[in-house]
């Protein structure tokens, strides 16, 4: 497999980035949900929050890399039979997903930054990530929390559609095959 994308397939870097971000992102949603569901166990809740923040920053860093990579890479062409509406839907879904991998961690960072608790974001206990320069208040924290939650659950729905489409096209290649992110679908 090539490092870079080819005319017809995603390269190794795109695939590695897609799957690391995808796995972390998919794990991050239930982790975020658990931070809200564990209020009865504040010690566990505190630790889950810190894991959630660290993982979120990792996703943000990888997402930035990934977007830079995809901007400087060619996009594999859809097979010639792909309907334009499908192409368009896929492109929009991909753009939306990429945007989410930036917007959701950024809104999360905004929660941590505006929260009157001012709990440091100690990235995997290695380095402190400073807060964004934002005014601290209960109301700002509440607004960013709402937005963060809506975006995250919205992204969950998008991912279900996106993965569904991928599986659908894997099963029925004649429907207009996607280029394949899956290892066995490697094509030059």
């Amino acid at each position, binding site marked *: 497999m090539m490092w870079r994308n080819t005319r017809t397939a995603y390269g190794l870097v795109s695939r590695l980035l897609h799957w690391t971000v995808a796995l972390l992102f998919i794990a991050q949603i239930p982790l975020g949900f658990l931070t809200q569901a564990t209020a009865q166990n*504040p010690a566990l809740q*505190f630790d889950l929050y*810190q894991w959630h923040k660290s993982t979120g920053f990792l996703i943000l860093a990888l997402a930035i890399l990934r977007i830079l990579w995809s901007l400087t890479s060619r996009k594999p062409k859809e097979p010639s039979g792909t309907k334009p509406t499908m192409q368009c839907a896929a492109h929009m879904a991909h753009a939306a997903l990429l945007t989410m991998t930036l917007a959701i961690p950024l809104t999360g960072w905004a929660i941590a930054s505006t929260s009157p608790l001012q709990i*440091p974001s100690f990235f995997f*206990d290695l380095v402190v990530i400073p807060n964004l320069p934002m005014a601290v208040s209960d109301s700002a924290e509440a607004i960013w929390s709402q937005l963060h939650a809506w975006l995250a659950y919205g992204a969950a729905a998008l991912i279900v559609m996106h993965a569904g489409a991928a599986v659908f096209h894997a099963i029925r290649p004649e429907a207009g095959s996607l280029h394949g992110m899956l290892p066995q679908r490697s094509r030059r």
Partner: protein
Amino acid sequence: MTEQIKPFPLMDDAMINSLSRLTATLVLAAAPAVLALQPSYAANHYRIDPASHIGFHVGQAGDGAGISGTFPEVSGSFDIDRNDLAHSSVAVTLRAGSITTGQGRIDTFLRSNAVFDATNHPEITFRSTRVVPTGPKSATIEGILTARGQSRKEAFQATLVDEGGARMAFHVTGDIFRMPYGMGIGVPIYSNVVTFDMQLQGRR
């Protein structure tokens, strides 16, 4: 050869021996009780004034302010022997549930079972076991600190800052590691070391 004078002519030697042993035992047994009745020979007893200030600080990773707060509900007493500081003693009780930082959500967290578990362990106590003078107006106070049901030997530095009439005030400082008390939550985002800075006021 002169006859030995017996204190109790009707008793033989064995009886006298056992009697004197019994007396010695009784005296020894009574001694601590007598000492306890008189805390120390020239000591004055002070009640800790609720106006005392029990401040603490926990640092945090990075350059943020960390967490600072107080325990407004404090009680206890100290006995000060002016002539012999080493014979002084102190006992302090803090109400864990009174911990206050100025941020309600942090207070709720500190009182919860994540940290002090104030419902099950309502009191934090310190009982001195030894007072070692370090200067004319200062001493190291060793004792047993009990928090969240765990008891450990700790030491604080005390300095006499004010006295007059029936009052006496000490500035007391000390660093306590919180992890051994089962309160390690948040380490290393928040320091393991809790720095105490207290103004203990006593009234006779």
